[in-house]
């Protein structure tokens, strides 16, 4: 039985409620799925013109799905905690009959014939789809002036970048346009927009959530995962979407128990390794590092044991990630790049074209390095008895939009890359606000299949630091 934290059920407040609260109100009959859906539709109509998070809406379908959820509630046939909850998908997840652009003008009329595995799972859980969210072009683009669709804007400061590539998800959550969203993460594309927009997100263990029907950027590094306003909501969503999928080669036969029942408000017995060399890496600001250290103080109070550890250089993870990602991305898109380069935005064009200049030796070297770096990471965790690693989720404040570099990951290390290389579960957790009043965040990463421990610690931290939560009015 879900006991909501919040007693607000007025129309104005519905859009501010968490998935947890909405689910509790649906279960008790205090709210109808159709009421909730209509409230979020009104919120989207009010906010989307300013923040441009949604590329495509599916309101008629949403109203019908909500009506079906209400029917199940009346018949006491609710499918579980997600039944009747509105969601939106990054526009890289295929949705049967609903346009899926992957942020590309070349795909303006692309209407998939089948659903992605994630949307299949959400439908089975009774979720209500509100629409498709802005996604940087081919999941590797950025805020280029020549992109095909309106670029979502960071509600904390519209001059600053939202982070990508799950940009629309970060913005829609931060502005209360949707309580739950699905992103994807190849080098940080869930965690970076979550951090820059001040929301929560987890990149699950590699293979835990099926990639079928998620347009690939780099199959060996891609992860599908949830974003929400709290880590508890992420846990509820992860429980709904994970599972072995024999129809996709990267899907893991090993699966885990539901993560939500394991959430608690303390961290007794949890051992966290503060990765000092990541936190002190080139480009990490003092403010970002301090926010992470303050978070560790909170974890200590919550009962966790903290150890300081060091992993291989962040640059080693970054270059292995960049080489694999860019080479695989170019292999996927080479025909488009050879035949339709003029229809691809300038920033994406330059990022993915780089993949044409790798040699087979480069790619194999990066894959070998991936194996070594992964072994070293988990060996260190085992030797020190670590359940989790902790380090900043971002180098510093989001850059101004016109200062986003095409090759930023070659100028400073990518602090989200290690968990893509190792396949570890990795959450972005809010850590307050910077002097510029921008959200800050740290990462918690776990051992493979330790998603439950990551989310449990993130939830305990959020319960202890509710003041970091902020939905834009």
């Amino acid at each position, binding site marked *: 039985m879900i006991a909501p934290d919040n007693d607000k059920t007025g129309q104005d407040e519905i859009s501010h409620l968490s998935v947890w609260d909405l689910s509790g109100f649906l279960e008790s009959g205090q709210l109808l799925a159709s009421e909730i859906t209509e409230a979020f539709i009104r919120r989207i109509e009010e906010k989307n013109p300013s923040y441009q998070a949604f590329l495509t809406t599916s309101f008629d379908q949403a109203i019908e799905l909500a009506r079906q959820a209400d029917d199940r509630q009346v018949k006491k046939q609710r499918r579980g905690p997600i039944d009747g909850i509105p969601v939106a998908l990054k526009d890289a997840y295929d949705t049967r009959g609903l346009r899926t652009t992957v942020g590309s003008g070349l795909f303006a009329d692309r209407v998939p014939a089948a659903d992605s595995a994630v949307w299949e799972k959400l439908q089975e859980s009774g979720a209500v789809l509100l629409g498709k969210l802005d996604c940087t072009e081919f999941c590797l683009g950025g805020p280029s002036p020549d992109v095909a669709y309106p670029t979502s804007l960071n509600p904390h400061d519209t001059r600053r970048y939202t982070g990508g590539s799950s940009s629309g998800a970060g913005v829609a959550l931060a502005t209360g346009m949707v309580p739950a969203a699905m992103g994807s993460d190849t080098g940080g594309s869930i965690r970076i927009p979550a951090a820059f927009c001040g929301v929560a997100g987890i990149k699950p263990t590699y293979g835990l959530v099926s990639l079928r029907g998620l347009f690939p950027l780099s199959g060996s590094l891609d992860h599908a995962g949830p974003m929400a306003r709290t880590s508890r909501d992420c846990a509820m969503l992860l429980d709904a979407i994970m599972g072995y999928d024999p129809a996709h080669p990267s899907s893991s036969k090993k699966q885990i128990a539901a993560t939500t029942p394991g959430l608690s408000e303390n961290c007794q017995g949890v051992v966290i390794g503060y990765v000092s060399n990541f936190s002190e890496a080139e480009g990490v600001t003092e403010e970002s590092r301090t926010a992470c250290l303050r978070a560790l103080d909170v974890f200590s109070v919550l009962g966790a044991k903290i150890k300081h550890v060091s992993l291989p*250089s962040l640059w080693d993870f970054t*270059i292995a990630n960049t080489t694999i990602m860019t080479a695989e991305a170019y292999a996927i898109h080479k025909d488009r790049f050879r035949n339709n380069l003029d229809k691809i935005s300038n920033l994406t064009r*330059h990022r993915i074209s*780089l993949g*044409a200049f790798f040699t087979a030796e480069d790619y194999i070297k990066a894959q070998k390095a991936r194996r070594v770096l992964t072994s070293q990471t988990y060996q260190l965790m085992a030797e020190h008895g670590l359940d989790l690693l902790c380090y900043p989720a971002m180098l510093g404040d989001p850059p101004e939009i016109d200062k986003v570099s095409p*090759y930023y990951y*070659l100028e400073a290390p990518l602090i989200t890359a290690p968990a893509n290389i190792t396949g570890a579960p990795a959450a972005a957790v809010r850590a307050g606000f910077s002097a510029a009043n921008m959200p800050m965040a740290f990462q918690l990463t776990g051992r493979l299949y330790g998603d439950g421990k990551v989310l449990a610690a993130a939830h305990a931290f959020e319960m202890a630091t509710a003041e970091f939560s902020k939905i834009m009015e």
Partner: protein
Amino acid sequence: MALEKMNLSQKNWESMAEQSGLDMTQLDQEAIFMACQRLRHLLERLDKIADTETEVAGVFQSQDYDI
């Protein structure tokens, strides 16, 4: 000159650009060239951890196909 140091001569670069099949007139060649150079420099870092004859990338797992 950095070109020789990176083992990426102008001739090699032109050859790679041609082989890529890309219309290089639609790209900022200097930006891509500089990024390639930077990447090659960074890739050298991986030699110390991965460039041994005995290391394997480990991409094939028999049990994955033992259905």
